[in-house]
């Protein structure tokens, strides 16, 4: 029992966090479009669901606080109060506080920090402004008479709990506790007379009943909702007591009729939300990420095994067998695609999280900044999504803090006073590209160069392209820049950003135009586990080139062979294509094969030709990381096992290309000379 409850509570925590996230999104949406009824509805539903589930687990602090929030939201939904910036800011803070409360539950009952408690109190007070009951306790009667709808009613609630209430994980007392938060409990009678005689008494069955008199402003519907969770096994009767009215103007019967219409109007609404939520629940199954990894690992092994099987089948010259294995490998491929897809999630959630960051930071800095998000539906591996959050956050903060100028400076530069920040994601040759662009002042090329020379990162005579200079801010030594007017802080921690991205097998580069803004481009692999490979052979060895990077294959004929060997590049339809002779690169001995081929690869804007002996075709490749011993090896990113059982090395094309670019940079000093690396 306790284990089940524990699991249920874990689910509650996860769901509550998601709901709070959704609530935050809707609040931000509401800030932009104050009339958006859907957003208000979504916020209300989120708060309501959290309150309901928290009540189920007897988490009184969450229920108590959320209830106050919900009251305000209810009034917002009814149009009693209007949306304004203050209210949104307050509700956002309330969301934060609810998250804090939930975190306390998640960390197993450690108490809130005094600071958090204080924040909670302050929020309660602030919410009171929007709450007629709390705001006007002093002259409650007159205020309520004017309000006409939140008058206190004495409710009589009669409860008879069913025998299985405890066994279903509920405690009748938690309903009482919850009712306490709704109003003043004038009278409680605990009924124990239905407890059977000792012989028949089962301590785990519930025989309790309560007669409660509650003085509350809550409507009949609100009270009724409290018992939604036990409706099946509990008799509930809620009636308004006809008592001498507090305010002579309003009689008891009037109060009842007042309560009724609200009841009727909320009921169909609730039905609508329930039907809305249902299909969504049906669409998703929560799966432990570890199980998914295990599955993908197994599928990887399956791919290898099936490749081995079809290789054997081919050597048997047995047609039916051949046919069967090819069907199997077709299916295996589909399973692989499906399994990999399970891990892919859209990056939109991560992006949307930044709306709040942008909002808060821009207020903090006193700048007016708009965040534009595009490509939110672009999917990438879950692990990558999780790990890219921090670097992105850093880049965004940097852009807001140092990239976008103050409103005055922007106006002086002839730009609109509102700064724009854009987050964009798209797929490009087997990787995902995330762009963070601002329309700020751009980087100061001279300052960076000066700084870099001072720090010894660049030889004083070296001539660098703008691009190279801008990318210097990702160097480790650069982050300690002293206060340099329009450069200050820029670059702080950028080396950390770069390191994190490199760890994900990604790259980052930066482009900037003075006065127009800066674009940071992050390029990441789609998945970390499996790639579509292109097999090439050199001597007896086999190498794998990620297929996404292969552009085309051409034969290298005799005359071209000699000239290209001397020059180190090839004329590809008028384009200069630098060549890497893999045979030399990996020190294969023996004479070159009679026929040679060039595989043209592209990564980012660099293109090169890899000279190999044989082209062996496509192959689904499960990446096996190399041991630590080979960690320092450049140009190889991993290994894989072929169907024959032989090991093939996977080429690290980005690293190879980079090596090439660096070599070029060393030999070609003149900035205007045509770049040998084709762009």
């Amino acid at each position, binding site marked *: *029992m*306790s284990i089940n409850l524990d699991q249920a509570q874990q689910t509650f925590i996860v769901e509550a966090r998601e709901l709070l996230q959704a609530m935050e999104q809707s609040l931000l949406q509401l800030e932009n479009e104050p009339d958006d009824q859907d957003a208000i509805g979504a916020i209300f539903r989120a708060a309501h669901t959290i309150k309901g589930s928290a009540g189920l687990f007897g988490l009184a602090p969450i229920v108590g606080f959320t209830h106050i929030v919900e009251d305000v939201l209810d009034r917002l939904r009814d149009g009693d109060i209007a949306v304004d910036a203050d209210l949104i800011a307050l509700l956002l803070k309330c969301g934060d506080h609810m998250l804090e409360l939930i975190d306390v539950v998640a960390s197993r009952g450690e108490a809130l920090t005094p600071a958090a408690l204080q924040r909670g109190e302050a929020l309660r007070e602030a919410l009171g402004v929007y709450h007629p009951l709390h705001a006007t306790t002093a002259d409650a009667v007159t205020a309520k008479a004017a309000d006409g709808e939140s008058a206190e009613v004495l409710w009589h609630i009669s409860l008879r*709990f069913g025998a299985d*209430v*405890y*066994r279903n994980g509920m*405690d*009748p*007392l*938690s309903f*009482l*506790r919850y009712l*306490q938060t709704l109003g003043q409990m004038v*009278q*409680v*009678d*605990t009924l*124990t007379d239905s*407890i059977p005689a*000792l012989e028949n*008494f089962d*301590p*785990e069955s*519930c*025989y*309790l009943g*309560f007669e409660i008199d509650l003085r509350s402003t809550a409507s009949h519907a609100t009270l009724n909702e409290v018992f939604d969770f036990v409706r099946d096994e509990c008799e509930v009767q809620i009636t308004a007591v006809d008592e001498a009215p507090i305010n002579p103007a309003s009689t008891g019967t009037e109060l009842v009729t007042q309560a009724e219409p609200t009841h009727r109007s909320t009921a169909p609404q609730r039905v609508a939300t329930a039907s809305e939520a249902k299909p969504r629940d049906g669409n998703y199954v929560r799966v432990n990420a570890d199980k998914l990894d295990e599955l993908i690992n197994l599928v990887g092994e399956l791919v290898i095994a099936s490749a081995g099987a079809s290789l054997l089948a081919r050597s048997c010259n047995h047609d039916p067998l051949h046919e069967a294995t090819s069907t199997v490998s077709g299916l295996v491929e589909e399973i692989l695609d499906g399994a990999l897809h399970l891990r892919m999630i859209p990056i939109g959630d991560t992006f949307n999280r930044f709306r709040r960051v942008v909002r808060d930071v821009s207020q903090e800095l006193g700048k007016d900044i708009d965040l534009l998000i595009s490509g939110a539906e672009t999917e990438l591996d879950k692990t990558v999504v999780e790990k890219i959050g921090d670097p992105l956050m850093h880049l965004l903060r940097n852009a807001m803090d140092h990239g976008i100028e103050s409103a005055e400076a922007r106006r002086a530069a002839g730009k609109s006073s509102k700064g724009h920040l854009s987050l964009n994601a798209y797929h490009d040759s087997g990787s995902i590209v995330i762009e963070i662009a601002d329309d700020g002042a751009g980087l100061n090329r001279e300052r960076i160069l000066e700084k870099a020379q001072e720090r010894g990162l660049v030889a004083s005579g070296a001539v660098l392209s703008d691009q190279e200079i801008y990318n210097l801010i990702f160097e480790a030594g650069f982050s300690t820049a002293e206060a340099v007017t329009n450069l200050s802080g820029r670059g702080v921690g950028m080396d950390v950003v770069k390191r994190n991205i490199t760890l994900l097998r990604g790259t980052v580069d930066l482009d900037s135009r003075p006065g127009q803004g800066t674009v940071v481009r992050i390029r990441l692999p789609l998945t970390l586990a499996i790639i579509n490979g292109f097999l090439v052979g050199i001597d007896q060895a086999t190498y794998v080139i990620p297929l996404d990077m292969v552009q085309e294959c051409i034969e290298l004929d005799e005359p071209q062979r000699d000239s290209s060997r001397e020059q180190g590049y090839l004329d590809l339809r008028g384009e200069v294509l630098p060549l890497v002779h893999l045979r030399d690169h990996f020190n294969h001995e023996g004479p070159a094969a009679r026929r040679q081929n060039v595989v043209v690869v592209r990564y980012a804007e660099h293109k090169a030709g890899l000279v190999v002996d044989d082209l062996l075709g496509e192959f689904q490749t499960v990446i096996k990381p190399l041991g630590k011993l080979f960690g320092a090896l450049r140009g190889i990113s991993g290994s894989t096992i072929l169907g024959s059982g032989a090991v093939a090395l996977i080429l690290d094309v980005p690293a190879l290309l980079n090596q090439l670019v660096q070599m070029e940079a060393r030999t070609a000093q003149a900035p205007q000379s045509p770049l040998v690396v084709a762009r």
Partner: protein
Amino acid sequence: MSITHETTDDTARVGIEGELTIYTVAELAAALLPQVGAAARLELDLSQVTEMDGAGLQLLAVIEREAGINGTALSLTGQSQAVTQTLQLCRGAAL
């Protein structure tokens, strides 16, 4: 959860330590209910109870009822905060 138990003269003293909830009521009921009526006076010490719910409340109510039937004088010698709060919530329904 543990139960301490001692009997002096005509008074049985029973102390409950730990939870007084649905998880422990079955065990507690088996141990406590036979005590009721065994001695002329029954003193319940609830000062070490860490948690109490409706099922616990119900058990106390049964003990009280049985004590009345058997003519045992029942008294509470101690109550923890958890007990006090629960009893307050339902206005000391039992005891």
